[in-house]
């Protein structure tokens, strides 16, 4: 086993990306993702890669578009306000079927918001990361080790399905240090990219990376083809962790930082004799509807816990078709809920029973 060492989440994301074969990073400084770019700036020159501090988030994301067009693994990272600026290029990349990785180390919003951890960009990541009909793969780690593991996964899924992937982290995960290990023998899965614009060398017709279609029928056909691909992803790549859900009457649903708090709260509830469990979505898109539907058969109530005013809670309700009551608890503005706060909600639900 490789040595475990302490690493900040932001740095672990960067190291994992390099190990996943990403040699091109385009960024722009913003708190709290700072250490990710700094790590890249230190490492990339030593491995013959590119670290480029762009003139804006907009430019950085478009540089990713250019690099990804050429068939290589490229990425950018930012925090909430910066991600809003990247949405232009993300929409174009989705519309051009380009794989890439975007990391959002979320902070409070809207506007300049704050710099403390938040999960208020869930809607943006899963519903509208730009204009038009499209989805991106959205992965939500809850530990530094999982940040490492999901980077490779994100690149693989992006390459396989030719679409952008996002890691939705937050300031807490980005800033914290935890033990991590890297698999030194991990193989980077290479995907053939015959569509890449890297020069045809006189050996083929010219490749075109494009998202413009003047005939509505052409565009509809293409979007339909893309959505058929999304269906395959929904069927094959839902990921979630289930904790004590087998006999759970109160099922907490939380991802990322708030899932850690919820995990503690579930343990506290169990210690008090309350049958609580936790479902932790790892893929936010595709949303892990299967495990939620399974849990809805035995649970009396669901409690969604988020660091927002309640965004994922909509998807939980949709996933289980409101078969049981779905309550929400959250803190926003950069505040991390405490296990005690979540426990109080669990207790209230347990005492109230399912209406």
């Amino acid at each position, binding site marked *: 086993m490789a040595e*475990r*060492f*302490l690493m900040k989440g932001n740095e672990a994301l960067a190291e994992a990306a390099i190990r996943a074969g990403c040699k091109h990073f385009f960024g722009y400084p913003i*708190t*709290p993702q700072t250490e990710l770019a700094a790590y890249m700036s230190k490492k990339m020159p030593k491995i013959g890669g590119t670290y480029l501090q762009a003139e804006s988030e907009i430019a950085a994301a478009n540089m990713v578009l250019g690099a990804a067009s050429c068939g290589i693994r490229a990425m950018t990272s930012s925090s909430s306000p910066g991600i809003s600026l990247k949405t232009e290029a993300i929409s174009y990349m989705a519309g051009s079927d380009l794989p890439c990785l975007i990391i959002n180390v979320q902070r409070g919003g809207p506007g300049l918001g704050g*710099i*403390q951890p938040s999960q208020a960009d869930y809607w943006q990541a899963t519903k509208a990361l730009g204009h038009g009909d499209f989805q991106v793969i959205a992965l939500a780690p809850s530990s530094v080790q999982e940040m490492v593991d999901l980077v490779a996964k994100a690149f693989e899924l992006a390459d396989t399905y030719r679409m952008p992937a996002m890691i939705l982290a937050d*300031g*807490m995960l980005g*800033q*914290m*240090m*935890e*033990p991590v290990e890297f698999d030194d023998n991990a193989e980077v899965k290479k995907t053939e990219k015959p569509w890449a614009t890297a020069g045809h060398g006189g050996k083929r017709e010219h490749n075109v990376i494009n998202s413009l279609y003047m005939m509505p029928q052409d565009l509809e056909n293409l979007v339909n083809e893309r959505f058929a691909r999304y269906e395959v992803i929904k069927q094959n790549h839902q990921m979630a962790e289930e904790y004590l859900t087998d006999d759970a009457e109160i099922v907490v649903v939380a991802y990322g*930082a708030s899932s*850690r*708090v919820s*995990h*503690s*709260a579930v*343990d506290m509830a169990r210690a008090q004799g309350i049958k609580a469990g936790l479902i932790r979505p790892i893929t936010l898109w595709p949303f892990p509807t299967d495990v939620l539907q399974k849990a809805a058969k035995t649970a009396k109530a669901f409690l969604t816990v988020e660091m927002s005013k309640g965004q994922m809670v909509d998807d939980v309700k949709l996933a289980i078709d409101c078969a049981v009551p779905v309550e929400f608890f959250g803190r926003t503005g950069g505040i*991390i809920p*405490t*296990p*005690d706060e979540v426990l109080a909600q669990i207790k209230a639900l347990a005492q109230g029973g399912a209406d």
Partner: protein
Amino acid sequence: MSKNLNIVIAGFGGQGVLFTGKVIAYAGLIDGKEVSWLPSYGPEMRGGTANCSVCVSDVPIGSPLVVTPNAFVAMNLPSFDKFIDDVTPGGVVVVESSLVSKQTDRTDVKAFYVPATKLAEEHELQGLANIILLGKLFKETQFSSFEALEKAVAKCVPPSKQHLLEPNMRAVKLGYSL
């Protein structure tokens, strides 16, 4: 010693708050424990107050943000005031008494007052007041084995500053002797 240590270390930026926390986290890691380290970040890091949460546990760590510490190291007065009431009953409090003139009137915590800056100057350990406090915290909480702590200090002192390793170890032992 508590099975799960939830530690808050707080002081001015530049006092080595984050470094101290990192040594503890590494010591726990070397002992095979679950650990986490979470800093405060942002403008407050530049001259204001800095703090970090460190968890050392036998079970996976839920929230790495320590709200109610059972061990607290206060390196300045604002930090002392900010966190002292949050310490859980029975908790350990180590106070840098060179800089914090106050003492807590709480009787349900174990408070230790260490004039670390003064001691550092007396023992030619300038700049290592934080490590003296770390030695005291180690004595009162046994957050790891001593061997792990030694290794952790060695791990956290950067290769370019190896000449500081010996003073760091001396500072740990000085704190431990108090």
